[in-house]
């Protein structure tokens, strides 16, 4: 029978609920194998890096190869601590959502290295345009846990005055841009910010994050295209956690070999990085930041990882993927891998790790008690109702003043 005919093709994931997942055939470049070129290399010369996988921590949890950022044990312990705190924070917030204390939550389980390592590789003055699953950026930049929680429970101390869904943080002081529910819009905005910084003569890099699913939005193209045109100092992170709610990454990746490869067509430096390898994410982010700061322009970085938990508190992943898929995912767990690396160096042990977890759990519990003292969504106090009419414009016009009177607040 002839196969020489056009045919409608709908990509499907290899495994569905009930299947026994098996990734033994997944061909991923080994840690340490990728070359680390000069950061000012021409974008099109990064083809091998876009198709390969930059890794530092090998199967024995040793740091190998040219991308090792050679961090001090103190810096690695700090990274580990931020990742553990991010995970414990997420766990606590999920419980609170289940207890009805907040309306909604989104965890970043399994993706903690992507945000924490990036934040630590960048300068605090660099501008972040995140999506909704990079809470580790806030943790690593030292945002007060109480403030994060007050936002999530929309109470009287929520710095967004109860106007946004939980996890849609905004923190200007920490150079963390306001998160939008509209996917991908921040990619081209990050370019505008970077151009503004360059125009003002500031040595500021901007970094933005979207997921694999969002690369299908026009704003993915728009961001890369603008950065390509204006050679803006931007780092575009594509967090490929394999899943966009229920849709596996092939739905948005299509025929491209990798998400990183999409950057090559724009002439941008393009890297695929082991997203569960703290040291690889750190090393690659440093490289991209150096490239941006030296005028080399933007980098597209695919962070290869796995969304280990549900998309959100409104989602049940057992309806579309095998329960065990995350457990056998070949890149493992980012916290466990850095932990084992530090243990191997003699810079960490199980006892200290347990102590760290206990300390972080206590920190989160204490923070929540304090956050709750400023009110909860259900029981208040909230921001004053009249504040609902503020910040639409710099000054409310007559319509807003009248509507506020109509409501009697």
């Amino acid at each position, binding site marked *: 029978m002839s196969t020489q005919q056009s045919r409608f093709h709908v990509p499907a994931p290899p495994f569905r609920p009930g299947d026994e997942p098996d990734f033994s055939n997944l061909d991923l470049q080994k840690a340490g194998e990728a070359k680390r070129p000069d950061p000012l290399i021409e974008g099109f010369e990064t083809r091998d890096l876009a198709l390969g996988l930059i890794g530092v921590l090998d199967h024995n949890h040793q740091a190998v190869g040219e991308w090792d950022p050679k961090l001090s044990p103190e810096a690695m312990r700090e990274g580990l601590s931020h990742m553990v705190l991010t995970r414990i924070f997420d766990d606590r917030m999920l419980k609170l959502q289940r207890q009805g204390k907040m309306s909604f939550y989104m965890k970043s389980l399994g993706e903690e290295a992507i945000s924490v390592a990036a934040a630590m590789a960048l300068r605090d003055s660099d501008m972040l345009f995140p999506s909704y699953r990079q809470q580790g950026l806030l943790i690593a930049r030292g945002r007060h846990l109480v403030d994060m929680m007050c936002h999530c429970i929309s109470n009287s101390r929520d710095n*967004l005055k109860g106007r946004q869904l939980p996890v849609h943080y905004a923190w200007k002081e920490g150079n963390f*841009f306001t998160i939008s529910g509209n996917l991908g819009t921040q990619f081209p905005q990050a370019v505008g910010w970077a151009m503004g910084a360059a125009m003002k003569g500031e040595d500021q890099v901007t970094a933005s994050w979207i997921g694999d699913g969002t690369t299908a939005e*026009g*704003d993915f193209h*728009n961001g890369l295209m603008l950065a390509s045109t204006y050679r803006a100092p931007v780092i575009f992170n594509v967090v490929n956690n394999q899943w966009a709610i229920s849709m596996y990454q092939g739905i948005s990746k299509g025929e491209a070999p990798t998400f990183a490869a999409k950057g090559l067509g724009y002439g941008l430096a393009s890297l695929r990085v082991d997203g569960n390898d703290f040291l690889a994410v750190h090393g690659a982010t440093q490289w991209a930041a150096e490239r941006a700061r030296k005028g080399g322009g933007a980098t597209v970085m695919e962070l290869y990882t796995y969304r280990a938990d549900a998309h959100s508190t409104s989602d049940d992943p057992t309806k579309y993927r095998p329960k065990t898929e995350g457990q056998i995912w070949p890149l493992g767990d980012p916290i466990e891998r850095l932990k084992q690396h530090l243990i191997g160096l003699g810079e960490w042990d199980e006892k200290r790790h347990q102590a760290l977890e206990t300390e972080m759990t206590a920190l989160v519990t204490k923070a929540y008690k304090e956050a709750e003292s400023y009110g909860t969504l259900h029981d208040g106090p909230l921001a004053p109702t009249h504040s609902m009419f503020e910040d639409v414009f710099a000054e409310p016009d007559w319509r807003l003043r009248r509507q506020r009177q109509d409501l009697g607040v």
Partner: protein
Amino acid sequence: MPTKNMIQALNSAMDVVLDRDDDVVIFGEDAGYFGGVFGATQGLQKKYGLDRVFDAPINEAAIVAMAIGMSAKGLRPVAEIQFADYIFPGFDQVVSELSRIRYRSAGQFTTPVTIRTPCGGGIRGGQTHSMSPEAFFTHIPGVKVVMPSNPYDAKGLLIASVESDDPVIFFEPKRIYNGPFNGVPDAPLTSWATHPKGEVPDEHYTVPLGKAEIVRAGSELTIVTYGTLVHVAQSAAEKAGIDAEIIDLRTIVPYDMETIAASVNKTGRVIVAHEAPRTSGFGAELIAQIQEECFYALEAPVARITGWDTPYPHAHEWAYFPGQERFIRTMKTVMEA
């Protein structure tokens, strides 16, 4: 005083703001070296340099997003969308981002962006060079919507828009770029040089946002309109011999209800007029508000003169465009009611 057409007035406004504020940047498709397809940015790149006035890729969503990022960083971008008909690829960035960033960040980030875009029909522009999409934008909390009707206002309103800390969608009726238009298709061209509002100072001045102007005082009937139809209404009122008070809104959102209500309460009769299609056009909002505020003063049903609920046609342009005849007919109907 020097006379300018609208293009020259807009060019002068941008020259003034570029000169006064280093944070002002101007960009759009063909807006840099070439100076814009209508010439509005002519000479500005040469005078201020490539990093202040530059060409942008053909991507309206990217143009708006870039302006948002720049403005949040502290610049004052003036972005050009070549035709208002092509603003829709950027609609998500306007609706979901530009308009809400101050609100959703509780004032931490602000977006003082001005988006200039030529609008309106009467130029044989067909479906995609004639639209008046202002009503789509008046329904978005957080953006201001402006449309000048003459060179003096064009410059003053544009400077006020750029200096405003709120985002502004600035619609420019291209039919009247070169001279006022009375709505008669084959009428000889008149130049702004013969119109009092064609006198435009070279220096900085503003026309305040949110303030309408009574361009013709009258006692029998109020006509609320903006853009090209301001001139059509004036000419039609003279021809019909009706003592109409004609209000040029200038700012569509937030509209100047005080001026409208004072006029309607005096005349008792009112027509709202715009080029855009009727259903859910901005006229509907004006009529609803006039009904709420002026019900007991009204002596006739409020009438509206608008484009039809069809896409903007090419061959039948003059049956579509609200010209003098429709104005005169509607004015008579309202006066007789």
